[in-house]
């Protein structure tokens, strides 16, 4: 029963959203005077100038960025077993996860563009530039800046999930076995531990991949625009006041779904290929046991690039933060000529109430989504319900503008628009899949013997959940909650659409501020957006530390 109500809560708006995309894509939109089903629009798009190039950009940036983020993540997980930078690393990645993509994009743009911070630091004494040079650095024509931006955001997310997974895997046990069989440290990882982690991480990686296909806000800033990736094109079609582009946008969304599926297919095929190769190595007994030197080189390379990527992220955020307190800061000064808070004066008294709104919505939504995710995972799955799993992830895959339009009609028809409840519902659709995603793979692979042990000691089902499973899974649960909170905080369109613009949050304020020409306003927007999620992340960390400090199990392997 509970399960069916979760399905209803998710499915009904999702179906409405899907209808809002698919019907116009095939030419059905009576209000615009078109009500015949046709494949013309879908067909016409391919012949539009630059369309195929857009598709190529979307595929390339998504696959390339996910590839880099995934393998860096895997290697960092490997090496983190041997070193104690673990603790430090977790501190660094928290803010990177907490900030929305668009904030990160703004930070990176300011850091590396020809008039950016990096060049301000080395100009004019090193470069001799009094005015910025005309370099095609960011955005570049091939999408590398977007790839960089995506990696900076996705690597920390995968690492966070990866750490939570490691907690649930008996790594040292496998490590001892593999070494006793003569495998080197890295190859033992690939033979024994990578398969275990890959399975648990797979869904997360696919979502990261799909996100990269459909990302708009970051791509608007970092991707090339001649032409732009498909998701950006769809976004701008939806923004156009004319009617015809609305149909293009809908049809483009269908292509976007196909591209997402295609990329997932490639990724799975690739994963299968890697697995096959390692099975061949196993079969022929190739152990790489003597490859210590190469392993060392790989290690240095990986750690260096990972450090560089994380550094870019952190410095980008730092530069945005500096801008918020810069009254005047022109090229080529390394730091602002005049510090001040004048940009904050426009409506600082509202920031508190905005933050309160963000907090209330974010906390309620994440709590609800967490509870329903646990219920969802606890109730055994019937095969029929497997399909519904897919539908839960649909809101993350479709372009928000089109998806929300269909949903909005439903909301208005139900006469519940502009209510807090509706905003929470709309957020739930986006937060629930993320929480399920981060929690599910770990939850489903929880060692059932703990539950059996609990049962043999006379605990009921609920008591096992409450007193055994949840405490042992505290790290992933709280991680999932924090991620859900960060996702909710960053949502812009759902807040506006469901709330009729009456519910203002830090993000709605930040997005309107970001439309402003002043970089000070951008800086403030960035700070507003990173503040709350960061507080939640830190609070979660402190809570875990205090609550479980007596138990060795919860200490991160060190």
């Amino acid at each position, binding site marked *: 029963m509970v399960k069916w109500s979760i399905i209803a809560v998710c499915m009904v708006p999702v179906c409405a959203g899907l209808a809002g995309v698919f019907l116009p894509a095939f030419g059905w939109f009576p209000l615009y005077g078109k009500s015949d089903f046709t494949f013309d629009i879908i067909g016409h798009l391919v012949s539009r100038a630059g369309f195929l190039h857009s598709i190529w950009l979307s595929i390339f940036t998504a696959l390339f960025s996910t590839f880099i983020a995934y393998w860096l993540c895997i290697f960092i997980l490997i090496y983190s077993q041997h070193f104690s930078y673990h603790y430090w690393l977790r501190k660094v990645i928290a803010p990177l996860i907490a900030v929305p993509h668009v904030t990160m994009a703004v930070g990176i743009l300011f850091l590396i563009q020809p008039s950016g911070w990096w060049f301000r630091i080395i100009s004019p004494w090193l470069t001799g530039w009094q005015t910025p040079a*005309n370099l095609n650095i960011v955005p570049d024509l091939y999408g590398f800046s977007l790839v960089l931006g995506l990696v900076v955001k996705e690597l920390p997310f995968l690492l966070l999930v990866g750490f939570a997974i490691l907690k649930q895997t008996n790594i040292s046990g496998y490590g001892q076995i593999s070494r006793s069989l003569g495998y080197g440290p890295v190859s033992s990882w690939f033979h024994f531990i990578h398969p275990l982690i890959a399975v648990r991480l797979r869904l997360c990686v696919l979502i990261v991949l799909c996100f990269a296909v459909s990302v708009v806000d970051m791509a608007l800033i970092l991707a090339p625009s*001649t032409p732009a990736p498909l998701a950006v094109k769809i976004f701008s079609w939806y923004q156009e006041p004319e009617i015809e582009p609305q149909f293009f946008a809908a049809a483009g969304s269908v292509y976007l779904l196909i591209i997402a599926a295609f990329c997932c297919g490639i990724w799975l095929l690739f994963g299968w290929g890697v697995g096959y190769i390692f099975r061949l190595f196993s079969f022929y007994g190739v152990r790489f046991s003597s490859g210590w030197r190469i392993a060392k080189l790989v290690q240095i390379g990986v750690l260096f690039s990972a450090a560089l990527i994380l550094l870019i992220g952190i410095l980008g955020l730092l530069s945005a933060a500096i801008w918020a307190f810069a009254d005047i800061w*022109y090229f080529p000064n390394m730091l602002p000529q005049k510090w001040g808070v004048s940009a904050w004066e426009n*409506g600082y008294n509202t920031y508190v109430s905005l933050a309160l709104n963000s907090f209330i919505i974010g906390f309620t939504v994440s709590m609800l989504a967490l509870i329903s995710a646990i219920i969802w995972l606890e109730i055994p799955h019937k095969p029929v319900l497997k399909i519904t799993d897919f539908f839960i992830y649909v809101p993350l895959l479709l372009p928000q503008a089109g998806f929300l339009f269909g949903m909005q009609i439903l909301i208005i028809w139900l006469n519940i628009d502009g209510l807090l409840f509706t905003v929470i519902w709309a957020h739930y659709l986006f937060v629930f899949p993320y929480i399920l995603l981060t929690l599910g793979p770990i939850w489903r692979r929880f060692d059932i013997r703990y539950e059996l042990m609990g049962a043999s000691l006379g605990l009921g089902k609920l008591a096992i959940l409450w007193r055994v499973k949840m405490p042992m899974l505290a790290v992933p649960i709280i991680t999932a909650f924090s991620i859900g909170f960060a996702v909710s905080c960053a949502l812009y369109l759902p807040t506006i659409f469901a709330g009729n613009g009456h519910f203002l949050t830090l993000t709605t304020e930040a997005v309107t501020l970001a439309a*402003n020409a002043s970089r000070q306003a951008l800086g403030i927007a960035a700070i507003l957006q990173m503040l709350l999620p960061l507080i939640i992340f830190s609070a979660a960390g402190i809570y875990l530390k205090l609550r479980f400090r007596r138990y060795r199990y919860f200490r991160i392997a060190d």
Partner: protein
Amino acid sequence: MGIFIHKIFPRLLLAIGFCMTLVVCSISVVSAAEDHGYEMLEEKALGQEVSFNAWGGSPAINNYIQWVARQVDERYGIRLKHIKLTNTSQAVSRILAEKVAGRTENGSVDLLWVNGENFSRMINAGLLQKDSWAFELPSFRYVNSEKMPDIISDFGVSTNGLESPWGRGQFVFGYDSQIVDTVPNSANKLANWIKNNPGKFAYPQPPDFTGTSFLKQVLFELIEDQMALYQNTNQVNASELLAPLWQWLDDLHPYLWRSGKIFPSNYSHLVRLLGDKEIAFAMAFNPAEFALGVEQGILPATIKSFIFDKGALSNVHFVAIPFNADAPEAAKITANFLLSPEAQLYKANIKMWGDPTVLDLDLLPDEWRREFSSLPQHPSMVSVEQLQKIIPEPHPSWVKLIEEEWQKRYAAGG
């Protein structure tokens, strides 16, 4: 009374509206509606909440709207709520969704800041109030649609009183006087400057509004038969008429910022690049834009503005009331206040927003005219006399054609 309000009153309004339209058509300059009709509106508007959907990206404009909110609250007991949009199409699609879902009253938008394509899209989808309410507003008497035809013709689409004029946008350039010695105030001079200073000029990528406007502004100079621009593109040989524009751009793109391979995404991006000194020019649709930027410290004081010698592309922006507005009476009162000399004066002040008035100063009472002529000037702003040179917006069909052709030529990759 109930019957009166729900049945007769709207018809009465409609009738008045109809009469007023006739009046407008015949004499152009419109006098106010009967005062008692307006008082009725005020009575109904008392205590209503107006949700005013307006672009919210500029603190100056937001502050101005806050001022308006205080004024209408004090005077009419209207609670004005500014719903900040990042793009007007957000609100248009919300109203559209309401129409699809069959909500004919209690709509979420009462007043919408709109013009051009969004307006014509709303007309086509039947999303606006049916009566010509805008012509009945008392403040409309200070408007001179004979002198400024674009006040009742929004990008060539007749407003029919479905939207009330609010302000005027004029296409101005900003430039860094440290880099630029003499102002290149024509398309040819600009082309020469760009070739002599490679990498220092950019324009926002069409279909961005400012970017397309730049192309229209240039087209206006390159084209011989300017009147053709006021006809539908399918009535003239458009591709031949556009050829000089593409030639002009083909010549210049290699000399643009990032060699014309990457374009700034919108005018905000452009202004940021100007502040960073990556480029020497920017453009905007508000004559006070660069003065405001200097005041706020976004731009250095060396930034000045100019317009092309032939005149500045110019259009009017409006406020409209959706068909299902929850508080149409209060929305009308607000629109009337926005058009009043007092609100227009405050808006035109560079210390506030600097948006030029849509009122005809000659029609104003003397004391208001004096107030308008003694508005403060700013060194970074184009003088009021210069701004008199107006180029009205071409027929809207040109926008679509220019944007599509541009897309094909310069944004298809390869």
